[in-house]
């Protein structure tokens, strides 16, 4: 491998220096890193807001904040986590960085549009910050902005909704860019069934981003028109129907949870075969399940509304469709586990985090079925059970996949290797803290504690105290994990081009990659997960493709 200068030393377009070489860059890798710093900032902020919320709930009555502050804070936590961390997290950082490389090309199709999307993302974040300090303060509506409250409340809903509108635009343009890149920039030798699974999952996600996001955009526009002009489309006095708001909102926001989880599943599909030294089990099944989740997941939105007053027929149909989504999700879980069966497993921090993902995501998925079934849903609707469920999926799922991706691709992105021991300790602490934090919420929900309430009855105190305690463990684990990663940048230990024995194209180029990704034309393997070259003369498990 020739020693080409990495993308850190070689700006694109050429000639730009210093800060300009970042702020005006067209390089997908630099943009991926720029997204990373912005998204990590939001993640850490929202994480500590969450910790404050759980601290407030650790004992009955007022602990550290007023009820109004509590309402604004859980809204802020939700808005930041959803729109500024979980939705953009994996696609904007790792998708931007690795999708072109895995496709064997030098950039995304629309590099300037990519830069524009980053600016939209930053502008959306700026609006969210500004809405904290202007007017009557941050919304207290929850991230769902349900009418009529979001229209009636004095708080700064309009600005926050504008922020979400802009962020949606950014996410949609990224999706548009990925779909076009996938079709037009793929290496000519790479057939559809030779594409790495992470890229496949981004492709499925990108379609959802393109097709679902405009619905939330128009819904947010309608909220603003309702607030400024009083058009009455959601107001019963004027003939409107508030339930329609919920339909429009979830028509995007349910597919959005698949925008959140599909790229995470893609990461796991990359990590598991590498550390099992064995071809992924059911490559085609995983590809199809990604597309099936994207399609079926777009047809289940009203399962958020069983208690809102829909017809029994609707409840039945949406419940049935919801159960269908479980099938492709389970196909993936079984494929990952089957990949490990009889593999030559090498433990590493990314693998440990991926195993945590499989376990926590499975719990999240199964509690989702409890909620998807209309009968049980009526009992636990809007309780802490829901809070526990979606944190298992969004945090235990996407969050852990995000950590796994960070640990998996960190050596590739920065060319440095981190220390394993703190990474293991951090990962275990995070997982244990996670279980302590969210399992009590599932139990509290089954006992009947509603979500989003500032205070609760005495019988719920033990559970809430335990959950808060788990929250501190969880955050301690994450701090160890992140500090360990950042320390690796200060005292660099150089990472080789392929530290893990990966077989997809990003491992064939130097770490960090050169500006044009491939100095020589890449050779596309017949199958992206062929580990025979690593197993030659090795011990068993090499029978896979």
């Amino acid at each position: 491998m020739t020693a080409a200068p990495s993308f850190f030393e070689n700006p694109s377009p050429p000639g730009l220096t210093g800060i300009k070489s970042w702020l005006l860059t067209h390089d997908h890798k630099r943009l991926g890193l720029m997204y990373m710093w912005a998204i990590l900032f939001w993640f850490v902020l929202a994480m500590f807001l969450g910790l404050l919320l759980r601290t407030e709930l650790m004992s009955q009555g007022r602990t550290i904040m007023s009820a109004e502050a509590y309402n604004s804070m859980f809204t802020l936590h939700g808005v930041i986590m959803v729109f500024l961390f979980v939705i953009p997290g994996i696609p904007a950082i790792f998708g931007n960085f690795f999708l072109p490389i895995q496709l064997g090309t030098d950039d995304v199709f629309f590099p300037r549009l990519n830069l524009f999307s980053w600016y939209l993302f930053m502008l959306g974040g700026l609006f969210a910050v500004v809405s904290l300090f202007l007017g009557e303060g941050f919304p207290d509506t929850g991230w769902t902005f349900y009418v009529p409250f979001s229209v009636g409340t004095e708080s700064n809903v309009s600005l926050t909704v504008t922020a979400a509108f802009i962020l949606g635009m950014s996410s949609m343009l990224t999706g548009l860019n990925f779909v076009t890149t996938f079709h037009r920039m793929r290496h000519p030798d790479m057939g559809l069934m030779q594409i790495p699974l992470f890229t496949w999952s981004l492709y499925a996600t990108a379609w959802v981003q393109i097709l679902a996001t405009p619905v939330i955009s128009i819904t947010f526009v309608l909220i603003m028109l309702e607030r400024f002009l009083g058009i009455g489309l959601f107001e019963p006095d004027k003939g409107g129907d508030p339930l329609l708001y919920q339909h429009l909102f979830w028509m995007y926001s349910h597919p959005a949870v698949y925008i959140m989880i599909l790229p995470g599943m893609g990461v796991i599909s990359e990590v598991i075969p590498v550390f099992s030294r064995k071809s992924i089990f059911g490559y085609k099944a995983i590809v199809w399940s990604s597309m099936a989740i994207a399609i079926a997941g777009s047809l289940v939105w009203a399962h958020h509304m069983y208690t809102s007053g829909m017809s029994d027929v609707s409840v039945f149909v949406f419940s049935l469709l919801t159960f269908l989504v479980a099938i492709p999700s389970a196909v993936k879980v079984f494929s990952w586990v089957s990949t490990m069966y009889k593999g030559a497993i090498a433990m590493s921090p990314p693998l440990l985090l991926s195993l945590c993902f499989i376990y926590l995501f499975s719990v999240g998925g199964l509690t989702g079925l409890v909620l998807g079934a209309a009968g049980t849903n009526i009992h636990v609707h809007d309780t802490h059970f829901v809070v526990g469920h979606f944190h298992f999926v969004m945090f235990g799922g996407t969050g852990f996949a995000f950590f796994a991706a960070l640990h998996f691709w960190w050596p590739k992105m920065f060319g440095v290797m981190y220390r394993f021991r703190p990474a293991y300790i951090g990962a275990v602490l995070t997982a244990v803290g996670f279980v302590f934090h969210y399992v009590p919420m599932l139990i509290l929900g089954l006992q009947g504690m509603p979500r989003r309430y500032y205070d609760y009855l005495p019988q719920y105190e033990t559970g809430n105290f335990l959950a808060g305690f788990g929250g501190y463990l969880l955050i301690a684990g994450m701090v160890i994990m992140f500090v360990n990663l950042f320390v690796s940048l200060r005292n660099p230990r150089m990472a080789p081009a392929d530290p893990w024995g990966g077989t997809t194209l990003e491992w064939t180029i130097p770490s960090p990659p050169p500006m044009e990704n491939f100095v020589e034309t890449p050779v596309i393997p017949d199958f992206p997960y062929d580990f025979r070259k690593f197993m030659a003369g090795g011990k068993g498990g090499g029978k896979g493709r």
Partner: protein
Amino acid sequence: MSSRRDTLGLRIGMWLFLYSEIILFGGLFVLYAVYYHNFPDFFVAGGRELNRIIGALNTVVLLVSSFTVAASITAIQREKPRQAAGFLLFSLGCGLIFLVNKYFEWGAKIHHDIYPNSPTMQDAEPGLNIFFSLYYVITGLHGLHVIIGMVLLSVSLVLVLRGRVNAGRFTMLENSGLYWHLVDLIWIFVFPMFYLVL
């Protein structure tokens, strides 16, 4: 990045963007469908209040402008930039006529105290209020798209005059044209929904 120029890819990107625009309006059409189901009689009554002549005129204007945009692309392909510029100028004129008509239409309605949250509308039957709210939201958003389309066509016009859009390289004009056709297409649905509702 490199010197390659993949016009098919550029068009795919535009088509994906157009899908997203259709879904943006799709959300509003869903609202229309539900409320039409709830208040069919008021929608008929509201439709009678609108001026079908102006509506039909605007439809013709947009259809003609769509034709001239397509004609300007053909003219560019035949290496006749002045002709192409003429067609584009004509299309922009049509867009302007559409907006002026819309202005008078809205102006007359507002003059008669028909606009969201107006005293008349607050006392009116809920169905009628919903009809006119949808009318303002949908035609307003469509009008905004007409303006965006005109900006795109103007940019293409400047590029045609400077020779940057030419027979070998006219994706910008083609994509602006696609956008303009979308604006036209959406109007084709909006017109019967409000003006011809029976």
